C-alpha cells in the first residue's frame, strides 16, 4: 500500500506542494487521487510503469540526446501520477497567458514597424535593433492577421507560497506538445478508472486546433483551401518524432528542405503526382537555417528563396522569422513593461526577478551573489550553458564569473527558485519531485490554449532541472472542470 503518510510534502520546506496543504491534508483537486493512491501497490505501479514504457516504445516516441550516440533514441521517462490543476487555477493561468502572448505579438508587430515602444523610451533601441535575435529583414512586413508567434509554449513555475511565475516565453519553435498528447493517451489506457472519477478537460482536439490555426493564417493570395506542410530538419533532429506526429495527426505532409522547390514565384512540394503548392509552412527549423539565400548560406536544411516568398505573401511561415527577439532572455526582463505598454493593464502573470548582466549595477550584484543565483546565456536553451549557483563548485563559479565578465550582455541571472513539488513514483513508493508547466498556446484567428500542458518533472530527488536533455521526465497534466 502506498500510504499517504509515506509522502512528505515538499522536497524542501520552502517548496509549494501541488498535492498536500501545509497541514498534510490534500488540496481539494487532489482529494480523489489521494484516495486512489492509497489503494495502489508498489508492484502494481511497477507493472503499470512497464506497460507505459511498452506503449511509448510502440508509438515510437523518442527523444534524441545530442552528443550521446548510444542513447541517441531514448524514451523520455514518464511518471504515472498526474499533476492536477483546479479549474480556478487554470482560469487564472489562461487569462495571464493570453494577456502575455497578445502583448508579445503586438510587441513583435511594433518593433518590426514603427517601434513606438522604443520611441516612447520604454526599451533602449540597442536592446531591440542591436540584438542579434532581431531580424532587420522583417521590418515593414505585415504577416497574415499580424500574428508572428502562432505556436507558443510558455514555461511557468510555481514557487514559494504558490504564486505562478513565467520563466520563459518560447516563441520560436517550442516542442513537447506531442508528449502532452501521448501522455494523455497512455494514461487513459492505463488508468481508465481515474478518468471516470474525475472531470478532466479534454486535450485531444489540439491537432485539429493547430490545423485550424495554420489554415487561418494562410496568405491573402491563397483562395480556396490552403495546403499545409510541416518542415523538419530530418530524422536525426531531437524532436523528429514530434514533427512526424503532428503532421500525421493533422493529416498533412511532413517535408524536408529537399522536398520543397521554389518555382513561378511560389513554394511547391514534390509529390508523386508532380508539384503541389504549399501555402502554410509550419517550420521546425531555426531562423538561421530556413533559407540559405537569405540567411546561413551553408544550410542544407532550408529552401533558397523561402524568406523572399514569405515577404512577397506567397507562403506563410509559422512561426514568423524573427520572433526570437521577443523570447530573448535579455528582453524577458522587459516583458512586464511590454504587457503594460500594449495592453494598459498590469501583468496578470509575473516574471521571475531577473538581473541583466548588461547593466553594470546588476552585473555586480550577480557576480557578488553567484552562489545563490541561476545564470543563463541570453540565447541558450534546453538547460545548456547555465550555472546553478548553489549546486556549482567554487571552481565552476569562478570559471563562470570570468565568462560573465568577458561578455556581460550575454548573461542574465535569476534567484534559485524552489519549484513546486508534485508526488511522483519512485522505487520506494511516492516522493515529492520538482515540476514546471508548459501550456501550449495557438494564435491565429483566435487565441486557443489547450487546458493543462506538459508538466516536466525533475526525477532525481532534490534536482531542479526538468529538461529532458538533462534527465527530466514528464507527467500527464489535468485541468479539472467545475
Amino acid at each position: 500500500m502506498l500510504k499517504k503518510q509515506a509522502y512528505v510534502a515538499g522536497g524542501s520546506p520552502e517548496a509549494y506542494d501541488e498535492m498536500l496543504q501545509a497541514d498534510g491534508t490534500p488540496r481539494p483537486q487532489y482529494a480523489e487521487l489521494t484516495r486512489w493512491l492509497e489503494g495502489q501497490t508498489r508492484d502494481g505501479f511497477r507493472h503499470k510503469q512497464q506497460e507505459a514504457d511498452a506503449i511509448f516504445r510502440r508509438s515510437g516516441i523518442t527523444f534524441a540526446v545530442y552528443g550521446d550516440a548510444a542513447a541517441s533514441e531514448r524514451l523520455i521517462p514518464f511518471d504515472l501520477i498526474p499533476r492536477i490543476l483546479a479549474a480556478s487555477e487554470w482560469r487564472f493561468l489562461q487569462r495571464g497567458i493570453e494577456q502575455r502572448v497578445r502583448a508579445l505579438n503586438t510587441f513583435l508587430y511594433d518593433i518590426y514597424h514603427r517601434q513606438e515602444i522604443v520611441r516612447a523610451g520604454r526599451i533602449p533601441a540597442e536592446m531591440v535593433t542591436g540584438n542579434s535575435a532581431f531580424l532587420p529583414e522583417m521590418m515593414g512586413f505585415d504577416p497574415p492577421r499580424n500574428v508572428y508567434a502562432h505556436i507558443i509554449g510558455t514555461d511557468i513555475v510555481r514557487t514559494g507560497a504558490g504564486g505562478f511565475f513565467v520563466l520563459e516565453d518560447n516563441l520560436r519553435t517550442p516542442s513537447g506538445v506531442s508528449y502532452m498528447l501521448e501522455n494523455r493517451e497512455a494514461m487513459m489506457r492505463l488508468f481508465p478508472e481515474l478518468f471516470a472519477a474525475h472531470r478532466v478537460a479534454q486535450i485531444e482536439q489540439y491537432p485539429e486546433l493547430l490545423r485550424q490555426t495554420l489554415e487561418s493564417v494562410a496568405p491573402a493570395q491563397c483562395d480556396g483551401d490552403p495546403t499545409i506542410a510541416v518542415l523538419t530538419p530530418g530524422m536525426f533532429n531531437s524532436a523528429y518524432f514530434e514533427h512526424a506526429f503532428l503532421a500525421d495527426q493533422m493529416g498533412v505532409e511532413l517535408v524536408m528542405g529537399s522536398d520543397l522547390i521554389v518555382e513561378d514565384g511560389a513554394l511547391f512540394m514534390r509529390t508523386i503526382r508532380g508539384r503541389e503548392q504549399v501555402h502554410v509552412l509550419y517550420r521546425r527549423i531555426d531562423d538561421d537555417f530556413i533559407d540559405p539565400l537569405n540567411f546561413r548560406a551553408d544550410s542544407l536544411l532550408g529552401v533558397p528563396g523561402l524568406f523572399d516568398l514569405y515577404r512577397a505573401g506567397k507562403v506563410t511561415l509559422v512561426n514568423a522569422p524573427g520572433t526570437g527577439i521577443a523570447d530573448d532572455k535579455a528582453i524577458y526582463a522587459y516583458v512586464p513593461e511590454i504587457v503594460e505598454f500594449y495592453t494598459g493593464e498590469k501583468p496578470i502573470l509575473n516574471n521571475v526577478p531577473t538581473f541583466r548582466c548588461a547593466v553594470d549595477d546588476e552585473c555586480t550584484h550577480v557576480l557578488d551573489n553567484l552562489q545563490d543565483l541561476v545564470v543563463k546565456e541570453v540565447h541558450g536553451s534546453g538547460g545548456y550553458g547555465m550555472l546553478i549557483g548553489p549546486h556549482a563548485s567554487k571552481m565552476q563559479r569562478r570559471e563562470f564569473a570570468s565568462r560573465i565578465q568577458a561578455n556581460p550582455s550575454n548573461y542574465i541571472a535569476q534567484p534559485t527558485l524552489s519549484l513546486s513539488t508534485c508526488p511522483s513514483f519512485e522505487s520506494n513508493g511516492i516522493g515529492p519531485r520538482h515540476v514546471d508547466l508548459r501550456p501550449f498556446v495557438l494564435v491565429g484567428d483566435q487565441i486557443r490554449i489547450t487546458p493543462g500542458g506538459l508538466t516536466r518533472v525533475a526525477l532525481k530527488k532534490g534536482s531542479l532541472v526538468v529538461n529532458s536533455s538533462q534527465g527530466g521526465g514528464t507527467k500527464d497534466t489535468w485541468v479539472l472542470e467545475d
Partner: protein
Amino acid sequence: MLGRTAASLFWMSRYMERAENIARLTEVGYRSALTPNSGGGHREDWRSILVAAGCLDAFEAKKRPATPEAIRAFLLLDRDHPSSVRSCVEIARNNARSVRTALTSEMWEALNSTWNELADLQPERIGPARLPEFLDWVRQRSAMFRGATIGTLLRTEGFHFSQIGAFLERADNTARILKMKYAVLLPGTGSSDRNAYQWETILRSVSAHRSYRHFFQEAYRPNNIAEFLILRQEMPRSLRYCTDQVQASLASLVELTERGQMGLALAGARYGKLAQVQIDALLRDGLGAFLDQFIIDTAEMAEAVADEFHFV
C-alpha cells in the same frame, strides 16, 4: 504523397528483400563448405557467391584474404559494405524511420526490433556453429516484415511502391543467381555429380529445392530448373512471377495517380515476353545474354519508376 516518401517505401522494402537474399546466398556458401569434393573447391564457391551478390569488387577492394570467415563477416555484418545484411537492415530501417507515419506500427515494430537486435551484433557471435540459426533468423525477420506489410498496410500508393521495390529486388536477385550458374543449365549438360550439386545449389539459393520436386515430380533437369526459375508463374521467386507483381502494382499506381505509364509499359512488355516464350527457345537463343538484358531492364524499370514518381 511526397516523392521522397514513395522513394523511401520503395527502398525500405527493396533493402529488406536484399537482406534476405544475401542471407540465402550466404547459406548456399555455408552448405557448399560442408559438402566434400565440391568440384572447384570452396574458394570458388564463395567467390561465385560474391559475384551473385554483386559485391566481388567491393570485397577485393578490402584486400583481405578470402577466407570463409572473412567473406561471411563481409556479407553479414560489415558496416562499410552497403549490401551486408546489417547495412541492408539499417538502410531499410532508416528509410522506414524517415516515413514513419506512412507505415503501420506492425511494420515499424518488425523492422525496428530487427535492427535493434542486429545493431550491436559482433561477427564472433555468429561463428560456424551459430550461423544457420542466424541466417534463419534473418529470413524469419524478413518474412515477418513482409507479412506485416501485406497484412496491415492500406492498399494505397504506399503499398504499391513497397511492392515494386521488393519484387524488382527479388527479380534482380534470381536473375543474378541464374547468371552465376547458367553454364550448368545449358543444353547438353550431363548429369554428373558435380552438376547435380550445382543444380541443387541454385534451387536452394531461392528456397526451391523442395518445391521443385513437388512441382515436377522428377529428378533435377537443367531445363526444368531454368523454366521453374524463369517462366513459371507458380514459383514466387521466378522472373515471371516477380514481373507480374511489379506490373500489377504499377497498374494500380497508374489507376490511382494517372502516372507511371512508362514503367507499366516496360513491365508489360517484359511480362508478355516471359509469358509467351518457351524454355527451349530461350536456352537455344542464349541464356547468358537473356539474363544480362533482364538485369539491365530491371534497372531501367526502377529508373523509370523513380523518374515518373519524382523520387527526387
